[in-house]
Structures are given as C-alpha cells and as structure tokens.
C-alpha cells in the first residue's frame, strides 16, 4: 500500500480498535453542522414558498421529482470521480460547498420559482455528491473491526444535527419577526462552518495499490465480484420492502387518529430513537456480526408492518412502532456501509458505496410507489398485509444472500 502521503497512520493500531478515529469524529462534526443547516431550510421551505412567495404546491412537486433523478446519477458520477482521482475529500468538499452556496442562491432567487427550483436542486445535488465519498473516508479511517461503531457514531451525530435544525429555524423566525431571509443567511453561515471543519480537520489519503488502475472497466468489474453482487442485490431486495416514512406515519396517524398538527412529531420520535440507538447497535454489529444486525433491522421493520396490520392501538402501540422504526434505521443505514466497506477494494470503495446507496434509494422509490398503488386498489388494510408479505419474502431471500457475503478473518486479511 502506498503510504508516503500519510501524515500519521490513522488505522492499524489494533489495540485501539475500539477508539473512534479522529477523522470519523471530524466527519461526524461536519455532518452534524451541515444537517443543522439543511434541516433548518427544509423545515421552513414549504412555508416560505406558500406564505412568503404565494407559490402553489405544483412548483414544489416538480422540484421533488427532479431531485430524485438528479441525485442518483450525481451520486454514481461523484463516487467514480472520487476514486479516479483518489480525492474523496475534494469531491465531498465540493458537495458540501455546493449546498452552502445553494443557501445563498435561495436568498438571491427572490420570488423567482425557477431560481428557487435551481437552488433546491443544487442543494440536493450537493448532498448526493458528498454521501459516498464521506462514507468511503469513514471506512478508510477505521480498522475493519470497529466500522460498525464508527458508522454508529457518525450517524448519531448526523441525526443530532437533523434534530436540532428545525428548532434553530423556529428560533431564528421568532427572533427576526418571521424573516425567512434570516433563516437562509443563518443556514448559509452554518453550512460554511461545516465546510471549514471539513477542510481543516478531515484527512484523506490516496489509496493507490500498485498495478491497480481505476477506470470504468474496473468499476464495472465490481459487479463480477460475487459478494459485492450478492450484497447489492440483497440491499435492493430489502429496499423493496421499505414503504417509506410518509406511509408508515400516515398509517399510524389514521389508526391512532392523531391530529394532523402532531404529525411531524412522529418523524421527531423516530429520529430520537435513531439518535440514541445508532452507537449501541453499531457496536453490537461489530461484536455479533454486521449482517445479523442489518437483517435484524429489517426484521424490526417487518414487526412494524405486523403491528400496523393488527388492531392493536393506543399509546403502547404508537411508542412500540416508533421505537421499532427508529431501530430499523439505526440497524440498517450505517451498518450497511460497514458491511459493504470491507468487501470493496480500497481504490474503488467510493464507487462501490455509491452503487449500493443508489440501488437502495431506487428500491425505496419503487416500493413506495407500489405501496401507493396497492393502497389505492386494496385499501390501507390490504396494502399493509401486502407489505407484510413482501417484507417476509425479501427478508428470507436476502438473508440467504447476505449470509454468503460474510467474510472469514483470513479472507479479510488477504
């Protein structure tokens, strides 16, 4: 391995395997700060468009569709370029930078729907661009046996930012007499701090393996690796059982007859569980096996559907569903990256992670559309039963695939 440019080997000290690398904490801080910035804006954006600018919902829907397509492609391209030039930090920094500039774009766009649309698309494109290089840097900063916890720590910091963002936005609105532009300015400043932390504290080292080149053919060959293919298809298959937050919360809201005003609190409850459970479940993944914890996360999702399919209701049911749903996120989101990292060659790791993330994102989209149609045809109860059936089948199918991706220590060292 080419290590000349490394100031200090961040990894490889096996005695400190349980310590979280400084680089992971730096990346976690960047994510925390950036999520405060972006969630501030998402929390007030609908309000700004309708009350501030008097736009109709059509504009928002249009932007929403655009963004799903744009981020999927950019994520793959960004991942490949980061590997090609071996500059993950640069590509991630570009992603964070674009999102920070997009906040200024929102301010400058004024009342122009096209300008606002462009700023929102730029913001989310930045998010698509940075995710895979960031996760690749995490996998390259930690010894393999501590990856689960490292991702747990990162995701906990990330969701803490997402939790605080809306609260900061409400505070700014209250302090500025409902000035939306003040929210954008504060969000832009916070985003700039995130970029600053990235530039000054995050380290990235090129991983060039002699005799291994990064090109599109090599990238395509990733899929020839049996374990990578199994993991990708397993992740997509499982992704097909996730019907999406909106539907889960809507089903809850209908059966519990929760007033619409409390609706956002369902998401807050889930984030809170995610925030608390990310580190313990990541550590558990390192000890008990990442694929097991990952599959366990989807089992929690299946349990959510099962509860939604029964007539159990009341506070107990509500809390249990939110708890299980938060566990689902905490046991799957970061853990999947921890499973995938060691299976991918270091020089193509960003590309591989981007591929798996994109595969899952597309699967989520497909399953939520299918669930919407199922709801329309069979009603809420029928659609929920269909989700239970789909989750059972995909969980069984992917369990077989995943258990075959598990590495023996000898293979990992090879």
């Amino acid at each position, binding site marked *: 391995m080419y290590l000349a440019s490394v100031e200090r080997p961040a990894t490889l000290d096996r005695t400190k395997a349980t310590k979280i690398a400084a680089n992971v904490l730096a990346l976690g801080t960047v994510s925390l700060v950036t999520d405060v910035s972006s969630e501030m804006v*998402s929390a*007030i954006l*609908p*309000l700004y468009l*309708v*009350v*501030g*600018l*008097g*736009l*109709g*919902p*059509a*504009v*928002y*829907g*249009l932007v*929403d569709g655009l963004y799903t397509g744009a981020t999927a492609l950019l994520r793959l391209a960004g991942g490949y370029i980061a590997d090609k030039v071996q500059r993950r930090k640069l590509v991630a920094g570009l992603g964070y930078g674009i999102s920070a500039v997009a906040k200024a774009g929102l301010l400058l766009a*004024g*009342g122009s729907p096209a300008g606002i649309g462009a700023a929102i698309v730029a913001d989310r494109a930045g998010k698509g661009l940075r995710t895979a290089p960031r996760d690749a840097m995490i996998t390259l900063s930690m010894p393999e046996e501590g990856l689960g916890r490292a991702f747990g720590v990162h995701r906990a910091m990330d969701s803490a930012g997402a939790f605080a963002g809306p609260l900061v936005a*409400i505070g*700014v*609105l*209250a*302090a*500025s*007499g*409902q*000035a939306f*532009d*003040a929210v954008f*300015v*504060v969000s832009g*400043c*916070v985003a*700039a*701090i995130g970029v*600053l*932390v990235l530039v*000054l*504290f995050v380290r990235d080292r090129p991983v060039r393996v002699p005799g291994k080149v990064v090109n599109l053919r090599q990238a395509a060959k990733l899929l020839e690796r049996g374990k990578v293919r199994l993991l990708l298809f397993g992740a997509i298959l499982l992704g097909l059982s996730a019907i*999406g*937050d*909106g*539907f889960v*919360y*809507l089903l809850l809201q209908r059966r519990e007859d929760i*007033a*619409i*005003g409390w*609706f*956002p609190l369902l*998401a807050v409850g889930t984030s809170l569980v995610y925030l608390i459970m990310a580190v313990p479940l990541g550590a558990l993944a390192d000890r008990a096996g990442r694929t097991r914890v990952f599959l366990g996360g989807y089992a929690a999702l299946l349990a959510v559907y099962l509860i939604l399919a029964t007539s159990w209701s009341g506070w107990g049911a509500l809390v249990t569903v939110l708890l299980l749903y938060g566990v689902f996120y905490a046991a799957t989101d970061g853990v999947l990256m921890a499973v995938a990292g060691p299976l991918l060659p270091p020089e193509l790791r960003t590309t591989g992670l981007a591929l798996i993330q994109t595969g899952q994102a597309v699967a989520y989209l497909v399953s*939520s559309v299918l669930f*919407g149609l199922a*709801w*329309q045809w069979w*009603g*809420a109860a029928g659609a929920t039963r269909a989700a239970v059936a789909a989750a059972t089948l995909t969980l069984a199918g992917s369990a077989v695939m995943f258990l075959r991706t598990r590495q023996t220590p000898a293979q990992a060292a090879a």
Partner: protein
Amino acid sequence: MSLRARILLAGGLSLALIAAAVAYVVVAGHRGSAPAVASAAVDASPGERLLFRSTTASSYGRVATVPRGNGSGPRTVAALDCDRVYAAASAAVCLRPDGPLATYQLAVLDGHLGIKDTYPLVGVPNRARVSPSGHVLAWTVFVTGDSYNGGRFSTRVGMLNTATGETVDTLETYAVTVSGRAYRSVDLNFWGVTFVDDTHFYATMSTSGRRYLISGDVTAQTVRTVAENVECPSLSPSGKKIAFKEAIGGDPGKGWRLTVLDLATMIRTHLAETRSVDDQAAWFDDATVMYAIRRSAKAADVWSVPADGSGAPSLLIPDAESPAALWN
C-alpha cells in the same frame, strides 16, 4: 499547519460566521417594525366598498377598504393583519399568523372587523370564503408531511357554521362520485371552496393527477364531479357562472388561464387576462371578475377583467390582494 493553528483558525472563522448570522437576525428583527399606521374603524358590512389585504410598505398585511369607484384612491386601513381575508353579509374571515412561531389561526370577524372568535389552524392558510348569508366560513390550508408522497403538499378544506357551531374538518370522508360513479382513493385533495348557500358549495378536488370542479352537499356529506381541469372556483353573484383558473394544457406547471364556466351550457370562456393567475378570483359584479397578480414576493395588485372574454384587464386596486366586493 499544526493542530493548534487549525483549531484557532476554525474557531476564529466560526465565531466570525456566527457573529455575522446573529447580526443579520437582529437587523432583520428590527426591519419589520415599520412605523405604525393610523388605524381606522373599517366598515366591512354590506356597502359600496372593496375589502382587501394591503401590500403597500406602510400598511403591509393590513386589512383595508376603498370606495367602489376609486380603487387607487385613499384607503381606510384597519389595525388588523391577515394573510387572507374575505367578507360577506357583515361577517368576515381572516387567516393570520398565531404568535411569533409558524402557526396560524382563523379569526371570525364581525362587520367592523372586531374579532368574535379564533380557532387554531394546522397548516399554511391559502384560501378563504364566506357563504352569502355570512353564516358559514370556509378555508383551505396547505399541510406538509400529510401526504404519503414524501414531503409534498396536500391541501385540506375546513368549514365552520357560526350559526350552528357545526364544523367540517375535512372533505376526505365525504362520499365521492366521479363522472357519475362512486369513487374511492387515498390521494384525494380538496381546495378553494365557493358557496352556493350554507350547505351547498363548489370546490376543487384532485385525484390521480386530475383536477375536478366538484359540487358538494354538507348535509348529505357528498361531493360529485362537474367538470375537469378547474381549480379555485368562484361562483358569480347570480349563481349562474363560475370563474376559475384553468391549468394551461392541463399542466399546472405551465401556469393558469383565468376562465369562466357557464353552469347551464358548460361552455368555457377564456378571459382577456393572459398572465398566469394563481388566485381564487372574486366577482366585482355579475359581468366582471377581479383577482390578484403578484409582482414580487411581497407585492401584488388587484386587477379586473370582463367576465365574457371581451375587453382587457385593468388595474383595480394597486398594492392589494385578496379582494372582496362588499356590495355583492
């Protein structure tokens, strides 16, 4: 760079950025406190006046009136802020922010804009109407997070009968008939109510990407579709015609053409206004429609145009939106 130097640099620049952000928030907070406007007793009872929401710098957001024949003349401004306002038969409805946080309320007003009652609203207010008798109020709010589609808007209609105290929280539970057949779907959205009388109304319903004019009955709890591609209907004083915004080419992304539908013949007439109109129009009289055209984020004008497709739009009230003709 040493770790110490990097920490100092990061700390210093972060403090500078935070200071800049705080300074902006403080300045923005003071910017809002414009000189108070002299408020007057505004008469919102039936008479030869137009009621509207003012968007001039000195009385931004205030409810005001002008005489019927002199829209750009001196306005009487009330000490009341509303995001959307409407009045009929000595009853007015005002949708407005509730406290400094981003929540809203519905205020029920009397003929002199005195607040009789307030109700919390969930969602961002968007449309408001009062039935011809003045008894029933209707409103539309945008709700986010309510949609199963992830982050998109859905709309919700509410009604309140101030005479009986009855409320309608949503139309989604009503029995729906589309083109004569019973219809069920979860993606129903309703907005833009206009009243025939206290129990009958027209509104917009969207489902499966189509937007319909619906006719509704509060007593029977039913709605049925009347025509397609109609949004934000507004019934004429005679009850024979409906002014509405028609999505150009059936695609709201392309904007809306202000159009009038004759309910007896079902013939549609495009009005002479060619700019996109994103408003629930109101009737000036049986031959003239009025509506707001937005100039920028915080400025709009009320225009009028003949309801038979002839003529040209003319400026009715500068720096105004949300108009209601109190003589109708």
